[in-house]
């Protein structure tokens, strides 16, 4: 049984369209959505090739985990002092514009793709040493891949488990506000309060001086909160 051609091209087109949208769309939220679409297209592509377990995992990770994590990060890095999502916001960190030097990036990317395609096209077919086992096409790869992962790839499999745990713990440790940062925040706050106090005292002094000048001493100085609104 060979690979279903139209479905392969459909999956490849969906994946490529999604990939191009991810890197060209200006709004980052749309880019994340495009990434989820890319994951679906890639899943279809891998499923058509015959890698059902890898396709399922790719869909789970590329349309579930990565967009969710990136969206969470984008929400946490939206500037709270800035205007909301609905307002017209010229300087919103979410709106990521493509750099001016995109032609250089396009050239490098096209050159890289051309190099890889050239290598694939000009290399000999020595790696094909036998037909694909037909039972893998009939019954799927899940059982065999599971056996392979838990027999010859036990150590890498366990290693990936440890890696995921370390990543989860490490992410919380990295993203946590540490002591130095708290101290810096407190120092910044105290400095702002001190400057505010100095500014207010200076304004009071100026106001008192201006109030005394007309001769009516004391009246203006007694009403310092008139103009600054308390």
């Amino acid at each position, binding site marked *: 049984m060979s690979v279903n051609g139209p479905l392969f091209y459909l999956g490849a087109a969906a994946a490529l369209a999604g990939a191009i949208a991810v890197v060209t769309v200006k709004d*980052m939220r749309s880019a994340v959505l495009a990434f989820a679409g890319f994951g679906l297209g890639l899943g279809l592509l891998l499923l058509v090739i015959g890698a059902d377990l890898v396709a399922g995992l790719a869909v789970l990770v590329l349309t579930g985990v990565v967009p969710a994590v990136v969206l969470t990060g984008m929400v946490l890095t939206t500037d709270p002092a800035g205007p909301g999502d609905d307002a017209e916001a010229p300087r919103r960190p979410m709106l990521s514009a493509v750099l001016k030097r995109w032609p250089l990036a396009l050239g490098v990317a096209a050159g890289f*793709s051309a190099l890889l395609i050239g290598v694939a096209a000009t290399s000999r077919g020595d790696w*094909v040493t*036998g037909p694909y086992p037909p039972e893998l096409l009939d019954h799927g790869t899940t059982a065999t891949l599971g056996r392979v992962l838990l027999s010859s790839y036990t150590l890498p499999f366990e290693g990936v488990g440890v890696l*995921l745990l370390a990543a989860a713990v*490490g992410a919380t440790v990295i993203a946590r506000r540490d002591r130095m940062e708290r101290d810096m925040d407190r120092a910044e706050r105290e400095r702002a309060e001190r400057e505010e106090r100095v500014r207010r005292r200076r304004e009071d002094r100026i106001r008192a001086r201006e109030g005394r000048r007309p001769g009516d001493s004391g009246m203006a100085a007694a009403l310092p909160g008139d103009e600054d609104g308390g």
Partner: protein
Amino acid sequence: MSIGVTHVLVVSALIFGAGVYGVLARRSLFGVLLALQLMLAGAEVALVGFARFGNASAQPLDGMALAFLAILAGAAEGVVAVALVLLAYRRHRTVHVDELDKLAG
């Protein structure tokens, strides 16, 4: 013409190229992160393609096993990268790579 390893490799190269473009052209760190995931996905497609159309002698699924593990490693990388972006944002109040230039000489 039946689908062969070359077709899969061409798709893989194009996805990888899109990722390279994104890494170079995106300004937001999140965009760079998504583009990195694209490059990783391109490599995974190539691995699966070789496993399906390539050497089918002793262990036909070596490439797929490697792709499986690479997808999981990519997920871990994404989680840590987002945590790093959050840290950079807290310290510098920006997620744009142009403005994070403290290490630039």
